Structures are given as C-alpha cells and as structure tokens.
C-alpha cells in the first residue's frame, strides 16, 4: 500500500511510540495492556493519517518469532513437571561436597547450559527455589547464588538463537541461523561467562569461604524423589534433543527455527500423550501478546518512513567499512546501557527495522546484529530489573528467611555494574581483535 511520507506523520508515529513506551516502562499499566493500547492507537491513528493500515499491522507481527516462542514454551511446560532439572540440581549440589565456591560454579554452569536451550525465566524459576533450599540446608547465604544464577542464565541465553527472546527476534529479522549464533556468540559468551563467575567468586569471597557451610553429607535431599514422571521425562528429553539437533542443521534443511521447534512439539505430544489443553495453559500468552503489540507499534513508525530516515542518516556512517567497527561497538554499548534500565524487548524490536534498513542501503550489517544480541544479553545484568530472571531471584531471596539474604536494588547494582562493565569490556576487546570473524 502506498503511503504519503510526511514529516508530520513521522512525528505522529514517533509520538505514539514514545507514549506507549512511557506507559510500558513506567509500569503504570501492565506492560501487555500498555502495548496493546499502543498497537491499537498506532493502527487507528495511522489509518486516519494515511501512513499505516490494518493489513500492515497484521503483516508486521513476526510469526516466526512468536511461533518459535510458543513451541519452546510448550516443550518447557512438558519438561518442567517431570522433575528432571531438580534431580540434576541436587546431584550437582552433592558433588560440590559442601564447598560454597564449587556449589556456585556448578549451579551457575547448569543454569547457563539450560538457558541456552530453555528460556531463562523457566530455568531460574526451577533453580532459584532449589538453590535457596540447598543453601539453607548448608546454612549459607543464598544471595550470591541467586545473583549468580540470574546473571549467568542471562549470559547463557545470549549464546544461542533460542536462548533469549531478543536473539529469536534478531535471528528472524536477520536470517542468521542457529549455528551462526553459536559460532559467533559463543566466542563472546564463553569469556563473558568466565569473567562473570570470576568476579562473583571475588566479590562474594567472604560469603563463599569454605567452612562457612556445614559438611558434605548434610544435604539431606533425595534426588530420586525429584523425578515424578520417568517415562515423560525421557520422552520429552528425547523430543528436546531432537529439536536441538535439528536446530544445528535447520539452515541446511531450509527449515525455519519455528518449524523445527514445532517438529519437537509434535513428537513430544505424540510420545508423551499429554493433554494439549494443559500445555496451552503453560504458554505465556501475555508475553506473546506483548511482543505482537510491540511489532505493530514499531511497524507503524516504520510505515511512516521515520525508521528509513534514521537509517539513511546512519547509513553513510555504517556503510564506511572503517566506521563499521565503531558503529557495532556503539550499538553494543547503547544496547547494554538501555537494557540495564528498561525492558530490552522494546529496544530490540525498534532496532530490528533500523539495522535491516541499513542493509538495504548497502551497509554490511552482520556485525551490528551480533553487537545488538550481546549488548542486550549482557546489559540485563546491571540492575535487578534488567531481566525477568533477576526479578525472580530477588523475590526468592526475600522468601529465603536467612539473615541478610534479601537482595536490595543497591546490592544488585554493586555486583551487576562491575559484572556488566568487565564482561562487556572483554567482549568489546574480542570484537575488536577478531572483528573479521564477525563480518
């Protein structure tokens, strides 16, 4: 549909976007309600002023992103009640032999690994209460462990295409596949992980001193009882392994990541014979509607021509190969800083058409995608509200009933700021030194 591009329309669309984002970030309304209000307003106003239509509003909702999220949520809903993750958590806690530092490393490692495939929120929802129980049994403060799990879950999620919603969106908008994410994000995420765990061990050295905890045999938990449904655990794990295996080759088979995830769901449903009605109840529809509404809001701004205009201004800068590295570093740090303060999803969705637009104007944008992905991934660690996983861990710390276990916003910031600055500095150095790898 042809639209008249005018500065007035651009201002109007920017105004609606700004108003919606203010509503979302100030949390005056539930973020989904605010986003739906924004989407309805953008579409209605766009129709009146002739820069946006209902057809376009529907077309801009990224089905690949939403369907991939639904499928992964359904797989998680099937896996979660089996108790397999709790089993693993208890096993690792016992392997740590009562040493708080080893316990921190093991629990953070397992949350990171699961966050690479499952969503961070689910991983933390399972491991955070278990961590509180284990640390209370060992009579040590759970706060360092909860902070570590949230932060390393965020970092782990940044490593893969399916680990974090921003990555799913970036993958869908850029066409970058699962393997490309592993190969390019991995060399940034692994050093960031090591730096973060090292910093956590240093910053919490007093709370994690050996001898603070009770002895090895004191973890009186029966991991065998954790598994509530062995047949479903094995079957769903099999379906999940198949899904991940297909993710590795989806680009060779010319399959969308979302289609691969749905193959996994179909297999899991078939072998586990679970009631789909119950699985659908486990899907976070509010999150999905929030994302869909954001796509519609940003679609309106894009349709008004404003994002094109911004892209044209940036294109001259980004198209210069000499400036590309600087552009990528600016995107990375801006994404990290903004993600520390506000929800990283609206920022990511706004950046998608801008970066995609730069490509159409001749700029080589692949490094910008990687910079955006790692920036939003690491930025969420700075504040206690930077990521949903952080909020869950803070809430869990408040329920731990241990002296000084409650994580205050300032306590989080004192750890989150150095963690973000150090990990992002290391990632930036890697990005600069091996820049050709990211081209």
């Amino acid at each position: 549909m042809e639209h008249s591009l005018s500065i007035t329309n651009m201002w109007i669309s920017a105004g609606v976007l700004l108003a919606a984002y203010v509503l979302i970030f100030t949390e005056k309304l539930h973020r989904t309600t605010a986003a739906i209000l924004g989407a309805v307003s953008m579409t209605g106003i766009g129709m009146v002023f002739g820069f946006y239509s209902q057809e376009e509003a529907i077309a801009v909702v990224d089905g690949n992103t939403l369907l991939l999220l639904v499928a992964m949520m359904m797989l998680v809903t099937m896996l979660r009640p089996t108790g397999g993750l709790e089993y693993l958590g208890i096993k690792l806690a016992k392997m740590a032999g009562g040493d708080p530092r080893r316990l921190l490393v093991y629990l953070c490692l397992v949350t990171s690994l699961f966050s690479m495939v499952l969503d961070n929120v689910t991983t933390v929802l399972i491991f955070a209460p278990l961590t509180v129980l284990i640390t209370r049994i060992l009579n040590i403060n759970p706060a360092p462990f909860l902070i570590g799990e949230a932060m390393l879950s965020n970092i782990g999620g940044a490593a893969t295409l399916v680990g974090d919603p921003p990555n799913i969106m970036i993958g869908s908008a850029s066409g970058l596949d699962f393997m490309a994410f592993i190969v390019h994000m991995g060399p940034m995420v692994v050093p960031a992980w090591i730096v973060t765990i090292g910093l956590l061990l240093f910053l919490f050295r007093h709370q994690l001193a050996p001898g603070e905890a009770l002895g090895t045999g004191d973890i009186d938990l029966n991991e065998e009882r954790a598994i509530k449904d062995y047949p479903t655990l094995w079957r769903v794990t099999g379906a999940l392994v198949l899904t991940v295996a297909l993710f590795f080759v989806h680009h060779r088979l010319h399959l969308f990541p979302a289609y691969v995830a749905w193959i996994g769901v179909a297999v899991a449903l078939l072998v586990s014979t679970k009631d789909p009605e119950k699985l659908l109840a486990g899907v976070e529809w509010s999150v999905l509607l929030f994302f869909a509404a954001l796509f519609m809001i940003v679609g309106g701004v894009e349709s008004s021509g404003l994002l094109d205009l911004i892209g044209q201004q940036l294109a001259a800068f980004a198209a210069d190969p000499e400036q590309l590295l600087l552009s990528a570093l600016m995107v990375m740090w801006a994404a990290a800083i903004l993600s520390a303060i506000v929800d990283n999803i609206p920022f990511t969705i706004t950046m998608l058409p801008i970066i995609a637009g730069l490509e159409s104007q001749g700029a080589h944008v692949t490094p910008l995608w990687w910079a955006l992905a790692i920036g939003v991934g690491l930025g969420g660690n700075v504040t206690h509200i930077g990521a949903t996983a952080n909020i869950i861990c803070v809430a869990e710390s408040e329920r731990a009933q241990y002296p000084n276990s409650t994580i205050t916003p300032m306590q989080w910031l004192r750890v989150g700021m150095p963690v973000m600055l150090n990990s992002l500095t290391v990632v930036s150095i890697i990005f600069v030194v091996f820049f050709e790898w990211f081209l």
Partner: protein
Amino acid sequence: MKLVDVIKPTGIGRPGMLVKDVFRLCVEADVPGIPFVDERQQIIGKLSIRHVLKQTCIPDFMVKHAHLLGDSLHHLDISKELLASVLACPADDFVLPNSPQATSNTPFSKALAIMEEQDTTYLFVLDQGIYKGTISIMGIAHAMLEENRAV
C-alpha cells in the same frame, strides 16, 4: 441429618488478640479456625491455624520441595524462639478476608459444595447475621455415622 446438629460453638477473634489466644480458642473448640470480627462486631474474615503456620513456620522453598526433604534437617525445624515469637504476634496480621459461611437451614450438600469451592474443611454458621458456630467436615462425618447407626 440437620446442619444445626453439627454446629460447634466457638470463640471469636477480635482486634488486639494475640496468635496464642486464637490458637487456644481453636484448640478448646476443636476447630481449625474461627471468625474474626471488627469493632462493630461484624465478621470481616477468619483466623486459620493453617494460614498462621504457613505464613510463619514453613518457608516457600520447603513447601515447593517437601517431597525431597530428608528427616535430618533439624536446623530448618521450628525453633523455640520462632515458636514464641509466632504465638506473641498480633492475630490481626493473619486475618483472611474470605470467610465461607452457611446458615442453620443450609442443606449438607450445599455446605459441602461451598467447602469444595472454597478449598476449606469448615464453615461459619450465621443466622440473620448472628454467629452460631462452626461446622467442619469431621462434624459432618460424625453426623453421617450417627444417622447410619439410627437407620
């Protein structure tokens, strides 16, 4: 079988009472909870032993993983200090706003349906706004046995 036959008269929770006073009233009447009235003697909620214990003595992380817990976790048990502080708490802090109610004329089936709907095992009986007592699932079971014996 009539509801009025299984009503147990109990004390009433009032503002300013301590948890130990409420527990004593519950234990004396052998009921799991009692109604709570405001200054105008209006029932505004209930005080439940289970709710008090859940809020004070059992952390969430233990409830979520109760099936995993071993029997040697004595340092996580309820200490004497905790026990004393809980009993000395103001009862007002634990008032649940929802207080399922019936009247003396309520049929047993309706009383049981309300219990199921509200996920509780007892109801307060009020006739024209005046509290008569509590009926519990145990009282109903007792009445059923008595009825069967009579048959």
